[in-house]
């Protein structure tokens, strides 16, 4: 079992300073213990994939990191601040530096693509002129290759396009960290691969660190600098794709069959 023996990180470009530190995090819903003594670090510039079975608490984990769910105990340090201790306005300031891509995209139905992208900008960059906002919207749409959709509504977009627009909205505030909740779920393999490649390109372009929740091994292979196995609420093992793929541990093998 690889267990706590942390394997070498294959990325050389990262520096050692963790941008996210989770220490002894516990979270239960009634009698269902989702996270139990979960401990893990995300270093600057690193892309970590959290792999685990459905219902194992992967989404709960990133929702705890962004402050949507409060853990029962433990510390969640994001960019130097312990998330469970923050009030609403302090959380808002941290959230402007942490992007979150929802599994369902969560685009605002009643707004056009432009308004979806402008929404966080108008609130966090209140001193920006309309021209500057337009420029940033164009730049974000350009990075996901969908400049022509600016005046469309989410209902007019395909699944892959929605995912790209949601990614553009996540990137528009130029976050330091991005949390992806199953970014390729519900997409065909080709679009899924395109999204995974796009995530890698954007991580390099914007110099972001990221945590990706995924079941899609193609996506994991493309995106992951490191994989964290979330089993029984714990960080069961971590390492590179190749390290875990060749592991002898039965629980880990199940994921790579």
């Amino acid at each position, binding site marked *: 079992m690889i267990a706590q023996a942390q394997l070498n990180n294959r990325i050389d470009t990262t520096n050692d300073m963790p941008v996210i530190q989770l220490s002894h995090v516990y979270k239960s819903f009634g009698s269902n213990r989702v996270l139990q003594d979960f401990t893990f670090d995300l270093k600057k510039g690193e892309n970590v994939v959290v792999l685990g079975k459905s219902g194992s608490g992967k989404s709960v984990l990133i929702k705890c990191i*962004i402050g*949507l769910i409060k853990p029962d105990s433990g510390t969640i340090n994001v960019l130097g601040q312990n998330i469970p201790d923050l009030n*609403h306005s302090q*959380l*808002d*300031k*941290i*959230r*402007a530096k*942490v992007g*979150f891509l*929802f599994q*369902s995209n*969560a*685009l*605002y*139905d*009643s707004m056009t693509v432009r308004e979806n992208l402008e*929404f*966080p900008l108008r*609130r*966090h960059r*209140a001193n920006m002129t309309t021209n500057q906002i337009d420029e940033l919207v164009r730049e974000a749409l350009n990075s996901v290759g969908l400049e022509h959709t600016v005046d469309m509504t989410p209902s007019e977009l395909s699944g892959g396009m929605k995912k790209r627009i949601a990614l553009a*909205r996540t990137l528009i*505030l130029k976050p330091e960290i991005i949390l992806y909740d199953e970014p390729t779920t519900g997409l065909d393999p080709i679009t899924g691969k395109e999204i995974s490649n796009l995530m890698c390109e954007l991580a390099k372009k914007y110099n972001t660190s990221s945590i990706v929740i995924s079941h899609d091994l193609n996506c994991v292979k493309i995106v992951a600098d490191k994989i964290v196995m979330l089993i029984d609420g714990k960080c069961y093992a971590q390492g590179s794709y190749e390290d875990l793929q060749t592991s002898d541990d039965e629980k880990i093998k199940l994921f790579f069959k």
Partner: protein
Amino acid sequence: MKSKFLQNFLSETGDISRFTARFFAEAFRPRYELSEFLKQCFFIGYKSLPLVAITAFIMGLVITIQSRPTLVEFGAEAWLPKMVSVSLVREIAPVITALICAGKVGSGIGAELGSMKVTEQIDAMEVSGTNPFKYLVATRVLAATLTIPILVVLADAVSLYGGYLGANIHGVVSWDLFWNQVFDTLAFSDIIPSILKTFFFGFAIGIIGCYKGYNSNKGTEGVGRSANSAVVISSLLVFILDLLAVQIIDLLKLT
């Protein structure tokens, strides 16, 4: 069984009170979402206008037609404009308009926010560091509180016009005579309290619609349930508030 019902009732009342307290804490602090507030005023006020106007017109017409035979029996037909105007302005137009809005606006807000909740759009606003409560709840509650009284004033006017037509179906009352009698009868003590109470009706409709939608869960089934319970609770609250308003007006001897 009874204790479970009581427990749920008290728990829900507590949650609504906390939600209302949060509204007051957030609504009057910058940043103000003016464009969303104006958009909601347009949806709640302007878009409800035809429905409110038609209902008010029919109510005015029907009340006049129904009241006439009784007044004729007592030889008091000439009192028809007076009686109709007092009933419409004091009670019927405000309550009927509020109930129409509880149905249209309350269910609309409940369903809209409910579907935003279950599709994680509210969470998306939250994680982007914007305040969804301020953007979604404060604007809608304020818009409902301010536009429903305006709709009631319009409903008063339209229902009185319906009353004028109703008075002329079986009798003849001139335009001047009708309106002279109406304005001779109506005093500020009739109009002001009846409009003041509609601010509370509007607030109740807005806050319940938002509370139910904002706390929606269990997928699409939950959205339907939110919209439904928003209408039921806000309609009931309209009657309870009306009862309280009548008692207060009576105690203060404003009539």
